[in-house]
C-alpha cells in the first residue's frame, strides 16, 4: 500500500509538471503561429503533426519491445527539453525567421501527443489491472491541475512580470526535465508490476500484427476511435463555426469567453475525474463505462438537431442564450469529458491486452487509426459545407448510435480479453500444427519405410486415424515382414479400422498363419473377431489347443461370437475346465473369457474370485460378473458398493460404471465421497453416476454440501450438480458460509503473521507455514467456488481466477481480481477485492497462538505442535 501511494504520487507529479509546461507551451505555440503565420497554415501544420506521429509510431512500436517503458518516457522528456532549448535559442538569436514558429508548433504538438500516448502505458505498468482502475483518476488529475496552474502562471508571467511570449518556451524545457527527474525516483524506488517490454523474441512484430488483426477488442477499439474522432471533429466544427460565431461576432468577446470557459471547465473536469469517473468505473466496470461517452454525444447531438431543425423550419424562435448553452455543453462534452471520462476509460481497455503488446497496439491506434480518422473527418467536413445547420448534428447522432452499438461488443471483448490473460498461453499454435501439406501422403510413405520405430508408429497411427485405405498393401507387407512387436501391433490396429476389403482380411489371416510370437497371435485373433461376415473358423479352431492362455482365450472368443460357429457349448466347457486348473496370473484371462461369453449361468463360477486375495483377480472377477449380467445388476448392488472401498482405482471405476444400471441405492455417501478423490477419472465417473440418478441423490448431495468438513473440490463438484435446485434460503446460507470462509482465510493469514514472528528457527517452522498456507488456500477456494456458481460462471472461470489469485505474481493477481470484479456476484466479490486490496490487514485477537493452531484441527499441524512440545 505504501508503494502504491508512492507510485500514485510520483506519476501524479510527472503529469502535473508535464501538463504545466505543456499548457504554457501550447498557448505560446498557438499565439505565435497565429500572429506570425496566420490561421491559414493551421491545416498544413496538422497534416505535418499527423504525418510525423505516423512515421514515428513504427519506430516507437519496435522500441517498446526492446526498452523499458520508463526509459522511453525519459528519452521523450529529454528530447522535448532539448527541443525547447533549441527553439528558445533560435527565437533569441533569429526571431525574424517565421519558419521557426511553425517548427515550434509542429514539434511541440508532436512531443505532446507522443508523450501522452506513452505515459499511460508506463503508468499502468506500475499497477495491477484492478489497481489501475482505482488509481488512474488520481494520477490523471495531474493533467487538469497542471493545465490550470500553467494557465495561471502564464497570466502572471505575461501581465505582472511582463515577460515576452518568445522568452517563455524555456519553461517547457524546465518542466520536462522536472518530469524526467521524477522518473529517476520512480526507477530507484518502484518496480513495474506488468512489464511493457519483453526479451526480444523472434517474430515479435508479426505476433503484434497478428494480435491486432485477430483481436476483437482491438477491432472494436479501432472502430470506436474512428467514430469518436469523426464525431469530435464534427461537433467542434459545429460549435466553433455555427454557434460561437453567431453568439460572439466580436473576436475579442469570443477570446474572453474562451478564457473564462477554460478556467471553469478545467475545474469541473478535475472534479468529475476525481469524484465521478472513478466511481463510475468501479461500479459499472471498464467495459460498461466506455458506453457512457457515445451516449453523451448522442444526447447532445439529438438536442442540437432538434434545436436547429425546429429553427430551420420556423417552429422555434432562435435564442442566443439557448444556443450558447448548447454550445457550452457541446464543447464541454467534446473537450473536457473526453479527458475526464473517455480517455481514462479507453486507456483501461488496454488492461485486457498483454502488456508487451501495448506499445504496438497504441502505435497502431494513435499512429495509424487516429490520422486516418482525422483525414476522414476533414474530408467529410469539406463535403458537408453548405448544407443546412441541422444536417451536421443529425450525422453526429447517427454516428453516436453506431458508437454505442460498437461499445457493447467492445465491453464483451474486454471481459473476454481479461479472462484470456489468465490463460497460460495466449495464442494457440494448434491451427498451425494441424495444417496438412500437399506432400502429406508421400511423407507417410517415407515414414512407413523408416528404420526408426517411432516414425513408423506415428505414420501408422495417422493412417489409422484418417482411415487412409490406399496404404493397405504397404501396412500388410510391413506386418508380415517386421520383427518388432510395437510395429506389428500398430499394423494390426490400422488394418482393422481401414474399410473392409479382402486385402486387409487376407493380410491378417496370413499373419495369423505365419506368426510365431504368442503376444502377437491374440492381437490378430481379437481383431479378426471383428470381421463377422467372413468365415475363417477353421483356421482359428487350430488355436484352441494352443498352450498360451491368451491365444486360447482369444481363439475361444473369436469362435464363440461368430454367427456360423455352432458348437458354443464346447467352448464354455473348455474355458471352465481351464479356469478350474489355472494358476494366479492366468486366472484373470479365463475370468475375462468367461465374462465375455455374456452368459449369466456362469456367475456362480465367478463369485469365489470376488474375494480373492489378489486385487487383479478381484477386478477381473468383478468385470466378468458385470459383463455376463448384461446390465441386470440390481441383485449385485451391495457387492458393487463394497467395491467402492477397494484400494484399486480401476475396481472403483468399474463398480461406478456398473452402478449406473442399478435402480436405486441405499446409501449415496460412498459415491459422494469420491467427488473429493484426487484422481480426475474417479471424480468424473462418480459425478456421472450422481448426475444420472440426480432425482434420487439430490437430497444426499445437498445435505453433504452443508456439512462443515468437505474439500473445496468436493464442494465445487456438488454445486455443479445441485446449485440450480437450491432454494433462496439455501443459497443465502451458502453465501454466508463463504463469507465465514473468507473470515477464516483472513484469520489464517493473521496466524501466519504471528507464526512468522513467534517461533522462527524452529524445526517445524517451514512446515507449519506451508500447512497454514494450504489451509488458507482451501478457504479461499471455498469462497471462489460459491462466487463461481452465484455468478453463473464455469469451471474454467474458477480455475483461472483461483490460479491468478494464488499466484505470487502481482500482475496475475490483479488480472484475476479484475475478472472477478466483472463477474455477476457482487457481495462476496467486493469482500474478496477488499481483502486483496488491503493486503489482508484485518486485525484479529489471536490470544493463545498455539491453542488457536490446535483448534484448526489439522492432523499434520497437531503433529508438528506436539513434536515442538516434545523437543522443547
Amino acid at each position, binding site marked *: 500500500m505504501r508503494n502504491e501511494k508512492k507510485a500514485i504520487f510520483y506519476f501524479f507529479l510527472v503529469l502535473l509538471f508535464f501538463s504545466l509546461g505543456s499548457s504554457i507551451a501550447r498557448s505560446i505555440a498557438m499565439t505565435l503561429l497565429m500572429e506570425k503565420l496566420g490561421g491559414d497554415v493551421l491545416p498544413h501544420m496538422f497534416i505535418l503533426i499527423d504525418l510525423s506521429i505516423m512515421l514515428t509510431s513504427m519506430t516507437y512500436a519496435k522500441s517498446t519491445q526492446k526498452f523499458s517503458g520508463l526509459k522511453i518516457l525519459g528519452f521523450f522528456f529529454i528530447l522535448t527539453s532539448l527541443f525547447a532549448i533549441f527553439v528558445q535559442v533560435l527565437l533569441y538569436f533569429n526571431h525574424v525567421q517565421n519558419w521557426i514558429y511553425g517548427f515550434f508548433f509542429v514539434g511541440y504538438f508532436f512531443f505532446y501527443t507522443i508523450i501522452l500516448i506513452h505515459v499511460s502505458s508506463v503508468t499502468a505498468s506500475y499497477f495491477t489491472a484492478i489497481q489501475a482502475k482505482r488509481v488512474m483518476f488520481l494520477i490523471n488529475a495531474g493533467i487538469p491541475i497542471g493545465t490550470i496552474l500553467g494557465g495561471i502562471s502564464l497570466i502572471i508571467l505575461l501581465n505582472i512580470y511582463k515577460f515576452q511570449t518568445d522568452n517563455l518556451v524555456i519553461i517547457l524545457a524546465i518542466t520536462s526535465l522536472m518530469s524526467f527527474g521524477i522518473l529517476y525516483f520512480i526507477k530507484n524506488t518502484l518496480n513495474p508490476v506488468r512489464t511493457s517490454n519483453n526479451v526480444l523474441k523472434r517474430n515479435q512484430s508479426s505476433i503484434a500484427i497478428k494480435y491486432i488483426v485477430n483481436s476483437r477488442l482491438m477491432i472494436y477499439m479501432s472502430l470506436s476511435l474512428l467514430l469518436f474522432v469523426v464525431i469530435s471533429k464534427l461537433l467542434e466544427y459545429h460549435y466553433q463555426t455555427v454557434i460561437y460565431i453567431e453568439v460572439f461576432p466580436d473576436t475579442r468577446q469570443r477570446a474572453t469567453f474562451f478564457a473564462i470557459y477554460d478556467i471553469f471547465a478545467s475545474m469541473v473536469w478535475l472534479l468529475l475525474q476525481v469524484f465521478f469517473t472513478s466511481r463510475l468505473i468501479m461500479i459499472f466496470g471498464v467495459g460498461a463505462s466506455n458506453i457512457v461517452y457515445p451516449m453523451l454525444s448522442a444526447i447532445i447531438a439529438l438536442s442540437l438537431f432538434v434545436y436547429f431543425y425546429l429553427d430551420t423550419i420556423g417552429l422555434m424562435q432562435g435564442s442566443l442564450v439557448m444556443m450558447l448553452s448548447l454550445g457550452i455543453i457541446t464543447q464541454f462534452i467534446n473537450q473536457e469529458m473526453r479527458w475526464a471520462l473517455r480517455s481514462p476509460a479507453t486507456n483501461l481497455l488496454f488492461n485486457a491486452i498483454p502488456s508487451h503488446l501495448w506499445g504496438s497496439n497504441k502505435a497502431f491506434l494513435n499512429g495509424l487509426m487516429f490520422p486516418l480518422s482525422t483525414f476522414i473527418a476533414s474530408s467529410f467536413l469539406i463535403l458537408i459545407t453548405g448544407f443546412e445547420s441541422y444536417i451536421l448534428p443529425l450525422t453526429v447522432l447517427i454516428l453516436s448510435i453506431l458508437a454505442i452499438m460498437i461499445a457493447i461488443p467492445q465491453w464483451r471483448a474486454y471481459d473476454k480479453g481479461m479472462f484470456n490473460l489468465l490463460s497460460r498461453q495466449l495464442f494457440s499454435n494448434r491451427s498451425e500444427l494441424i495444417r496438412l501439406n500437399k506432400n502429406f501422403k508421400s511423407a507417410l510413405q517415407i515414414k512407413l519405410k523408416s528404420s526408426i520405430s517411432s516414425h513408423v508408429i506415428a505414420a501408422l497411427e495417422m493412417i489409422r486415424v484418417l482411415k487412409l485405405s490406399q496404404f493397405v498393401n504397404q501396412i500388410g507387407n510391413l506386418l508380415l515382414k517386421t520383427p518388432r512387436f510395437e510395429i506389428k501391433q500398430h499394423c494390426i490396429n490400422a488394418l482393422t479400422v481401414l474399410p473392409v476389403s479382402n486385402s486387409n482380411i487376407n493380410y491378417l489371416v496370413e499373419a495369423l498363419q505365419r506368426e510365431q510370437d504368442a503376444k502377437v497371435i491374440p492381437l490378430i485373433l481379437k481383431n479378426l473377431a471383428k470381421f463377422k461376415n467372413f468365415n475363417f473358423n477353421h483356421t482359428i479352431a487350430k488355436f484352441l489347443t494352443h498352450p498360451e492362455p491368451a491365444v486360447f482365450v482369444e481363439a475361444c472368443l473369436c469362435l464363440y461370437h461368430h454367427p456360423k460357429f455352432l458348437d458354443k457349448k464346447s467352448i464354455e466347457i473348455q474355458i471352465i475346465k481351464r479356469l478350474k486348473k489355472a494358476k494366479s496370473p492366468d486366472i484373470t484371462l479365463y475370468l475375462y473369457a468367461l465374462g465375455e461369453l455374456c452368459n449369466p449361468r456362469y456367475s456362480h463360477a465367478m463369485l469365489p474370485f470376488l474375494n480373492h486375495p489378489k486385487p487383479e483377480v478381484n477386478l477381473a472377477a468383478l468385470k466378468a460378473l458385470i459383463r455376463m449380467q448384461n446390465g441386470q445388476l440390481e441383485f449385485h448392488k451391495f457387492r458393487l458398493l463394497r467395491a467402492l472401498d477397494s484400494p484399486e482405482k480401476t475396481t472403483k471405476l468399474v463398480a461406478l460404471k456398473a452402478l449406473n444400471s442399478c435402480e436405486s441405492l441405499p446409501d449415496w455417501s460412498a459415491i459422494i465421497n469420491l467427488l473429493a478423490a*484426487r484422481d480426475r477419472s474417479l471424480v468424473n465417473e462418480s459425478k456421472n453416476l450422481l448426475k444420472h440418478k440426480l432425482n434420487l441423490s439430490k437430497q444426499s448431495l445437498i445435505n453433504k454440501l452443508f456439512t462443515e468438513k468437505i474439500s473445496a473440490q468436493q464442494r465445487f463438484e456438488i454445486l455443479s450438480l445441485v446449485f440450480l435446485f437450491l432454494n433462496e434460503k439455501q443459497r443465502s446460507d451458502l453465501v454466508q458460509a463463504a463469507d465465514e470462509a473468507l473470515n477464516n482465510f483472513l484469520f489464517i493469514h493473521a496466524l501466519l503473521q504471528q507464526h512468522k514472528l513467534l517461533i522462527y528457527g524452529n524445526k517445524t517452522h*517451514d512446515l507449519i507455514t506451508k500447512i497454514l498456507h494450504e489451509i488458507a488456500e482451501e478457504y479461499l477456494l471455498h469462497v471462489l467456488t460459491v462466487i463461481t456458481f452465484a455468478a453463473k460462471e464455469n469451471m474454467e472461470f474458477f480455475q483461472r481466477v483461483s490460479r491468478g489469485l494464488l499466484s505470487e505474481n502481482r500482475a496475475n493477481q490483479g488480472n484475476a481480481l479484475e475478472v472477478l470484479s466483472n463477474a455477476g456476484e457482487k457481495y462476496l466479490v467486493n469482500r474478496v477485492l477488499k481483502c486483496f486490496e488491503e493486503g489482508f490487514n484485518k486485525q484479529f485477537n489471536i490470544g493463545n497462538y498455539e491453542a488457536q493452531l490446535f483448534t484448526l484441527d489439522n492432523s*499434520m499441524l497437531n503433529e508438528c505442535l506436539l513434536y515442538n512440545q516434545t523437543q522443547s
Partner: protein
Amino acid sequence: MIPLEKIIVLNQVPLFSSLKIEDIHKISTITTKETYEDGHILFHEGDIGDSLFIVVSGKVKIIKQGVDQPIAILNENDFLGELSLFDAETRTATACCHGECTFLVIEHDDIEQLAHEFPEIAFGFIKVLISRMRNMLAKSS
C-alpha cells in the same frame, strides 16, 4: 527418524518443496533412512543409478575421474541422483561421504509407482525440473 521428521526434511529439499504436504507425506512413506561412515562410497562414476539420496546430515564429496579436487561438496538438504528417478542412466561422478552421513533414500521403482498412482506428484517433479532447466538456460545464455 519418525515420519514427521522425514516430512520436515523432504519439505526443505527443493525437489519436493513445491509439492503439497499430502504428496510429501506420501513420498515420505517410500523413503528409507541410511547412515554411512566417513569415506563410504555411495556410488561410483559409471554405476547404473537407481536411487536418489537426500542429505539429512553430514557432507558428501562429488569426485570426477581425472580431477584432483572434489567438483562439489553437498550439505544438509542437498540431494544427488535426482535424474535416476526418471531413467536408469549411469552416474556421472563418484559420491563419497565426508564424515558420518545420514540420508533419506528413494528407490527409482518406488517413486515410479507413486507417480503412476498420483500423477500430480509426477507433475510436481516436472515443474521443479523445468524450473531448474530454465535457470540453467538463463545462466548459459
